[in-house]
């Protein structure tokens, strides 16, 4: 999907939770386009939760795409830390493992509430990686909790999921917690 297309769809979606279903082929580019739109075009600070690619890789991709990542706080739940204990370096908090949902929740809560700007975003990348490390019931409960929290925090919440055949039932169930489903 072109940047202009989802710009139209996302316009007027302040303080709402969107579940973005992305095809595997264009997954990386779509994520970059979404973040570019939020940071460069709208100039909104936010939190990027990565369960998929390490912070160093994401930072590199963002720099390559000329995304202003200085206004993003990163939560990396994939890079292994010593003893699996959370560690903070620069603008990123390393959780250690995507199984540790308590720490992911705590980190998101702290990162989002620390941003004083009225408008902010929370980008959760991605639902599929969460499914690798946790069972479907836990993931559904977590997304329900996350969508509720996103409404309380009054952020533009984006939960990314890959377009997969087996995922459809879960996505339909999760769509009811979110304000909008974007098939990109």
């Amino acid at each position, binding site marked *: 999907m072109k940047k202009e297309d989802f*710009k139209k769809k996302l316009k007027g979606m302040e303080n709402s939770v969107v579940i973005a279903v992305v095809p595997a082929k264009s997954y990386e580019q779509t994520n970059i386009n979404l973040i570019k739109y939020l940071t*460069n*075009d*709208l*100039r909104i*600070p936010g939190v990027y939760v990565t369960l998929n690619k390490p912070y160093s890789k994401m930072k590199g991709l963002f720099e390559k795409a000329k995304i*202003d990542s*200085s*206004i993003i*706080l990163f939560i990396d739940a994939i890079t292994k830390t010593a003893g*699996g*204990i*959370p*560690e*903070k370096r620069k*603008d990123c*908090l390393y959780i250690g*493992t995507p*199984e*540790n*949902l*308590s*720490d992911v929740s*705590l*980190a998101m809560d*702290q*990162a989002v509430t*620390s*941003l*004083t*700007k009225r408008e902010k975003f929370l980008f959760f990348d991605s639902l599929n990686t969460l499914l690798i490390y946790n069972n479907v019931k836990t993931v559904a409960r977590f997304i329900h909790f996350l969508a509720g929290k996103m409404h309380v925090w009054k952020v533009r919440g984006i939960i990314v999921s890959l377009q997969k055949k087996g995922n459809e039932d879960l996505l339909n169930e999760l769509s009811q917690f979110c304000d909008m489903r974007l098939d990109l």
Partner: protein
Amino acid sequence: MLRENTAISLIKYVFGILVIIFALIIISNIVSAVELIIGAITISVGILSIIWTILARYSLSPKSTLRIFTTNFLACSIAVTAFSTVRIVGRLVQIPWLIIIEFFFIFATFFFFLLASYYTYSIGREFGFQRESKNIEQILKRKKPSKKQIKAK
């Protein structure tokens, strides 16, 4: 019929009040010291605190920072409740060496309290984003939005 029901209810209330008064008389005869009553209340509060902490601990992810903190807090609650129990037992049975166990539990309480404080400090240091968010605020102030960005909003 209505009068009969009212009479039965009245008898129930009177009987209930008599039972409470009777129970209070028995308790005051058994437990005469105020210290023991306060001790019993303290233990009840401690046990409730332990139950709530255990429930919280089991709903948190294994190896998570919050779970480690909760475990320490649980140890702290157990130690302080044990201290209170030993103290009450000491008053009832008058065993002199129980003071050593009291000291042990009060030391354990402060030790776990220190650990819990350290974990609170770690949580604040690791999970706190105040400094980073202030940097973002300054960056946003420095770089004012362009006309294109205002239009995009």
